[in-house]
């Protein structure tokens, strides 16, 4: 357990080194800050203010100690603490990520169980072909198709923006009102498809394995009803490995949220990252990466703990 925590810190430290190295060896942000006609002295002064006149080692040390004190720097563009910007936009991203995850699970579990329990049936083959298409298509392109068909042609749902938000547990959320929820639907569907397809394949593969086990044969032999065998004996055991892919799933959703948010003009952290990359807003990029790294590390830790709790055969290393 302690070893695992130390490992987490090492991972975060490695990420901080990587982020710092990449950022400091690629371009000079001074020129994004000063006017085009700035004199040499003004440029030098700007570099001094930014602390860029010192050695990389000193800069890294300052970077690290600032982070340790909770100071992540200010956005060049918004002139606000970069962390505040991230935290402000986080609920919007969590909202579509969460909805996408729920959608993916709700569709993937029944279809995966069906395809895994009846691998030879034509419907199962269709499910598998569908999931392969889901893996093969670019998610952002699917979002564009949805925008064109559902929003532009049929005009059923809005195509972009977040709609009205309300305060809920100190966060601004949109799922509380119908109009806000309507704005959520298309981005969430777009985001969920890739994850849904992968989940379905994992569940199917697990079910195929589980249904071959002796305890399933025994349950059949003792005459347990098919439904009980499928869901109580089969699915329950097939779901255990699913816990381990949760961290991976969340990672993919957060990553693909950058694309989905860009298409739907959804004001989350993904769009903030993409905008910051365009504008060369280095502090925001750095904070985004550190924040996401922290999130993944913590989630993966929780996943490991849960896995050990669910399956007592596994010990946390």
């Amino acid at each position, binding site marked *: 357990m302690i070893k695992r925590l130390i490992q987490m810190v090492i991972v975060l430290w490695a990420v901080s080194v990587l982020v710092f190295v990449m950022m400091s060896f*690629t371009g000079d942000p001074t020129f994004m800050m000063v006017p085009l006609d700035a004199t040499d002295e003004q440029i030098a002064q700007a570099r001094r203010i930014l602390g860029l006149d010192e050695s990389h080692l000193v800069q890294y040390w300052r970077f690290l100690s600032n982070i340790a004190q909770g100071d992540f720097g200010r956005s060049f563009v918004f002139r606000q603490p970069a962390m505040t910007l991230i935290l402000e936009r986080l609920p919007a991203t969590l909202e579509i990520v969460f909805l996408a995850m729920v959608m993916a699970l709700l569709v993937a579990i029944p279809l995966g169980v069906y395809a895994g329990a009846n691998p030879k049936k034509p419907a199962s083959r269709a499910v598998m072909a569908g999931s392969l298409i889901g893996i093969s298509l670019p998610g952002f392109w699917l979002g*564009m198709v949805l925008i*064109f068909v559902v929003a*532009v042609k049929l005009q059923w749902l809005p195509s972009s923006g977040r709609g009205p938000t309300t305060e809920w547990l100190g966060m601004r959320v949109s799922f509380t009102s119908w109009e806000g929820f309507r704005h959520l639907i298309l981005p969430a569907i777009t985001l969920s498809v890739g994850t849904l397809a992968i989940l379905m394949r994992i569940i199917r593969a697990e079910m195929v394995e589980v249904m071959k086990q002796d305890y399933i044969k025994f349950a059949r032999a003792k005459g347990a009803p098919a439904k009980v065998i499928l869901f109580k004996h089969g699915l329950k055991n097939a779901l255990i490995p699913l816990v381990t892919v949760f*961290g991976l799933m969340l990672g993919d959703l957060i*990553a693909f949220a*950058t*694309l989905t948010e860009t298409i739907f003009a959804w004001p989350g952290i993904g769009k903030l990252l993409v905008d910051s990359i365009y504008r060369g807003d280095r502090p925001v990029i750095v904070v985004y990466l550190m924040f996401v*790294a922290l999130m*993944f590390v913590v989630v993966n830790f929780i996943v490991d703990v849960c896995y050990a709790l669910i399956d007592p055969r596994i010990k946390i290393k």
Partner: protein
Amino acid sequence: MASSQPIPATRARSRMQRFFASEFFHNYKRNLSAVLGSLIVLGFLVMVTIGPLIVSQNPYDVSQLDLMAAFKPPAWLAGGSSEYWLGTDGQGRDVLASIVYGSRISLIIGLVAMGGACLLGTTLGLIAGFYGGRLDAVIMRIADIQLSFPSVLTALFLMSAFGTGLDKVLIALISVGWVVYARTVRGSTLRETQKEYVQAARVSGLPNRKIILRHVLPNVLTPLIVVATIQVGTFVLIEASLSFLGVGVPVTQPSLGLLIKNGFDVLFSGLWWVSIFPGLFIMLLVFGINLLGDFLRDELNPRLK
């Protein structure tokens, strides 16, 4: 994949004939999705090699563009012309011609980056697995850390630091893609080095480099075929995402992903064909690759039989 028939002593049967008589080929013939997948991939290869000779214009030669023909819908819709099957974009570029040239760039990126990642990952995996020790620990920890990040995000971050460019996309893809080879190869290398033939080679005083290249390497390659196949598809998708976000290939060398981005701006005006068709081709290409990859996985993995 041993041949189902004994190899004749006369050596009359060529390598090709033996392949056609093999169990592998027999299973391939009977597997509809494998045949479909390879036909799709083959179709794309033909399209990117001889396609530019067939399509009516080079979409990036400005002198061949006709602004009067801008935003023409596909041929089967009202206002479409048979000259431009899939319609034209805002500069009068034939969408089909753009797709042919774009597929070429997407596919080249996918294949070259896969080759690079495979080379780098296999080398590091062999080193880690064969020598073990501290080197192994360092390589595998880097791999672990990288695996905890989604590849798209890592690639996006790298591109944001590098700036756009074909070479930079390749570097970014190789940097995210090597891990899977390194892990696979390290695992198989650990197993192989325990076996007697490697120990025999050691005892006979063969230098490590030769043992690795001549004895270990050929025996760890098979699982990589599946990984490499599927990775080409993954890379095509990641590259498309990067280019769509504007941090991938430059506008002078548009891949399928960049074509989608260019078409996205006019999607809201109802001009769907500029962006929807390139995406359809990405989907088809990656779908074909994945079908083939699935078949290879079932065929080359003896545990599943």
